[in-house]
């Protein structure tokens, strides 16, 4: 019988040792889905029969000594902007409510080839941007630590589902923070890899030069395992990087000793002052890293607002280009939040878009120079704990810059991991950022932190 909750790494080892049946593990997850998803709304589409068939196939492979690798038999689910052949891919929108692609996204196919078991398709903010919305065909996902609270987005179903143990990991996308935001507010791990590390082919676009695909899971090590399957060159994605894919877990045993970590204090102390529990989590993380033998220093970057200005103008302009035909003909078929945000992209000038792209290069150069003497940057992924879901002001997401934009603008790999609990027992986070294609170092540091702290031992009461 499966343990109440297992990580991907634990389940993988148990399956390999033939001590855990992929079918039993999948059934445990499906039972949890049946019990909790009516509250959490993590899923848009459940595929239990397909999941059990895939689990039986995985189990047969394992028993016959033909396992496909460490992810064989691991239950996951996909954000519903990832195309899945023969299954609806809706983007949580009325506009694609009945759309059924004839192909899998490149990363969906790679995860399937690795033997993962797909439990279904997951809630998102509409087209990975408009949410949380109550005027769409499906309700928004809710936070397992308190279902009255927001998951963040846009990979909201993945965040909620992983935190509740409905599945062990899942896919997300991150254009301005949509992997790291839900990871932060749902108390899990989520990595946005370097731009180009994972293919975007077959994933519905939001902003061509800012979109990243990547995984969310309970731990940094689990993220590394999923990333291992997702990463790799894809000629069908013009932004895909033709670079070697290292073993992302190879350095996990090294701990944080010798790593040079730059703390971007002005982000969370001055630019957007973070809540007390977030600040406490950062200071405790600094102490943990120092005790582990890391070299800690302060680093100064441009302001969060500076990154947000370039990032948001690029995002909204590129997103409008994607949606322009529908915006002109089906405006009111979108949810209010998405359509009124997207409209902004149709109103700014081409010159301002290009000024933002020029500013982006300057920001990349400044950031690279500031990181010359460090391996990693440390800040948070969210200034606050999860707010209440209902009654959020419509334009609240535009009021203050987020902590995640800088690393979409610069394309650098960044992970959010849980760093404790604050108001109402809601999770808080730290965010670690590395050099281009240095995901190995990012997950090494995050794993060292998780191993040295207790936060991975606590699950939402609802899921216990």
């Amino acid at each position, binding site marked *: 019988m499966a343990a109440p909750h297992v990580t991907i790494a634990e389940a993988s080892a148990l399956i390999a040792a033939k001590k855990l049946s992929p079918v039993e593990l999948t059934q445990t997850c499906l039972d949890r889905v049946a019990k909790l998803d009516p509250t959490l709304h993590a899923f848009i589409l459940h595929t239990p029969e397909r999941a059990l068939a895939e689990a039986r196939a995985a189990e047969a492979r394992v028993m016959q000594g033909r396992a496909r690798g460490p992810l064989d038999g691991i239950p996951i689910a996909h954000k519903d902007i990832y195309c899945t052949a023969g299954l609806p891919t809706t983007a949580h929108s009325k506009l694609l409510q009945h759309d059924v692609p004839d192909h899998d996204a490149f990363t969906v196919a790679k995860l399937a080839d690795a033997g993962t078991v797909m439990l279904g398709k997951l809630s998102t903010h509409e087209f990975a941007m408009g949410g949380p919305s109550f005027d769409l065909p499906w309700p928004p996902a809710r936070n397992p630590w308190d279902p009255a609270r927001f998951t963040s987005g846009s990979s909201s179903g993945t965040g909620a589902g992983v935190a509740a143990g409905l599945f062990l990991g899942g896919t997300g996308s991150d254009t301005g923070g949509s992997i790291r935001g839900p990871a932060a507010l749902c108390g899990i791990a989520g990595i946005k890899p370097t731009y180009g590390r994972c293919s975007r082919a077959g994933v519905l676009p939001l902003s061509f*030069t800012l979109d990243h695909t990547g995984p969310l899971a309970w731990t940094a090590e689990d993220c590394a395992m999923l990333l291992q399957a997702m990463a790799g060159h894809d000629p069908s994605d*013009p932004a895909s990087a033709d670079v070697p894919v290292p073993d992302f877990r190879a350095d996990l045993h090294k701990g944080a000793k010798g790593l040079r970590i730059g703390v971007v204090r002005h982000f969370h102390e001055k630019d957007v002052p973070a809540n007390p529990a977030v600040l406490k989590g950062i200071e405790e993380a600094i102490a943990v890293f120092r005790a582990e033998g890391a070299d800690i220093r302060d680093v100064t970057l441009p302001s969060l*607002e*500076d990154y*947000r*200005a*370039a990032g*948001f*103008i690029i995002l909204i302009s590129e997103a409008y280009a994607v949606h322009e035909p529908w*915006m*002109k003909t089906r*405006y009111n078929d979108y949810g209010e939040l998405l359509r*009124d*945000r997207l*409209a*902004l992209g*149709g*109103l*700014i*000038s081409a010159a*301002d878009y*290009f*000024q*933002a*792209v*020029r*500013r*982006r*290069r*300057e920001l*990349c150069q400044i950031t690279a120079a500031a990181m010359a003497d460090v391996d990693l940057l440390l800040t948070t992924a969210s200034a606050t704990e999860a707010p209440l879901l209902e009654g959020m002001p*419509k*334009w609240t997401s*535009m*009021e203050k810059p987020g902590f995640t934009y800088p690393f979409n603008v610069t394309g650098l790999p960044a992970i959010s991991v849980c760093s404790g609990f604050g108001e109402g027992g809601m999770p808080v986070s730290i965010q670690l950022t590395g050099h281009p294609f240095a995901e190995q170092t990012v997950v090494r540091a995050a794993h060292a932190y998780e191993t040295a702290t207790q936060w991975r031992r606590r699950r939402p009461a609802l899921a216990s």
Partner: protein
Amino acid sequence: MPAKTSRADFAALVRRAGLALTDAQIDDIHANAWPIMERLCESVRGPADRDRAVEPAHTFKPEQN
């Protein structure tokens, strides 16, 4: 802070974009979101001493297209 663009000029921008927004939608976006967009746009137009030859972050490379 209110938008620098007048309500009438903003409505003209909306019409030029081909968007069929209601008066209430125009009022909401003009009052609550457009002032932020104006601030962000002003921010990326600088710094004042930016060399006019500064290149964008993505450039056209014929061999890659």
